[in-house]
């Protein structure tokens, strides 16, 4: 029980053999996998931290760029709106002016043409009336008598005799 004999050396040798055998054939491969996995997990965690940090930086950068782009887009839209509004107003004013000009020109022309037509018609009517009166009465009258007569004649004409022409 407590006698130390040669068993001591046998046991020591056995344990050393067990150590060597297990290291070579069992624990070696097992611990290698364990260490590889530990290293892999540590690397993955480190990589994930780096990636997260990088992603946060990129997000910040993108948000800043996006905000700048939005601001710029807003500026462009505002400026385009202002420009188109100004252009529209200018066009409307220009068109209104043109319309006004065309209207007044047309009115003036209509008035001038009407006056001319009335004048011409009146001349023709006097001449025609004199000719008709001369022929019918067979006698010549003096100028004052003529004019009085024609005036009376014309005044006596009905609307039907004159047609649609207004004087």
């Amino acid at each position, binding site marked *: *029980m*407590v*006698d*130390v*004999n*040669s*068993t*001591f*050396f*046998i*046991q*020591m040798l*056995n*344990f*050393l053999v*067990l*150590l060597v*055998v*297990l*290291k070579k*054939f*069992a*624990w*070696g*491969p*097992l*611990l290698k*996998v*364990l*260490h*590889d*996995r530990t290293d892999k997990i540590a690397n993955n965690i480190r990589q994930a931290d780096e990636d997260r940090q990088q992603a946060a930086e990129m997000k910040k950068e993108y948000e800043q760029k996006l905000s700048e782009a939005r601001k710029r887009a807003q500026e462009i839209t505002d400026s385009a709106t202002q420009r188109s509004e100004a252009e529209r107003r200018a066009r409307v004013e220009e068109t209104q002016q043109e319309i006004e000009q065309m209207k007044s020109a047309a009115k003036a022309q209509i008035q001038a043409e009407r006056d001319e037509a009335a004048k011409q018609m009146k001349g023709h009517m006097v001449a025609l009336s004199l000719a008709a009166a001369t022929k019918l009465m067979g006698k010549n009258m003096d100028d004052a008598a003529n004019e009085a007569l024609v005036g009376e004649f014309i005044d006596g004409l009905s609307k039907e005799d004159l047609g649609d022409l207004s004087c």
Partner: protein
Amino acid sequence: MDKIGHREVVEFAGYLFNEETIIMNFITMAIVILIAFLASRNVKEVPTGWQNAIEAIAEVWEEKINTMIGPSGRSLTHIFLTLFVYLVIANWLGLFPAMESPTNDLNTTLSLAVTMSFLIHHGIGLARCGISYLKHFLEPFAPFILIHLIEECARPASLAFRLFGNILAGEVLIIIILNLAPWYANWAPHVVWVIFSLAVGVIQAYIFTTLSLVYVAPAAQPHEHE
């Protein structure tokens, strides 16, 4: 009762051997090798079964080694893993009928203690620092060599006697309990004591391995003796 602590001694080539201790030691080694084979026959990155169990034990020791020695001590994990698994199986073996723990023989515990606290401890120190490693026996000054030598003897002795005493006492108590009461009354304390002995087996293995690590750690630390 006359069986307690009794060893059949055989003589071979003029040397005396405890036959039963050696046979039980071979059985223990065979079981340890079988467990190691089951754990490592199909090593996978995601462990299952035996691999998982052994990895869990390996991680416990690796964690301790990491704390006491540092990451460079990783290469020593297999030594403490082997020692722990061997001791657990050896301590439990005596709980089976007609079996005896190889660790209830002082030859076994002393050989393990000397291997760990002397051979492996100083082997690592010499391998790391060469002959200059021996200078630490003369520190802080020369007469301290006496204290160091006493320490060198006390360490394996304390390791060996603690384990030997605990396991032998456990097995002695099993025999005493079985003889104290008739068969129909002794099973209850016997079962309780066997369960307790299972725990004692693990605890003693843990203590032995931890103390071995404590003794080996100074020689394996990177900053020591450099």
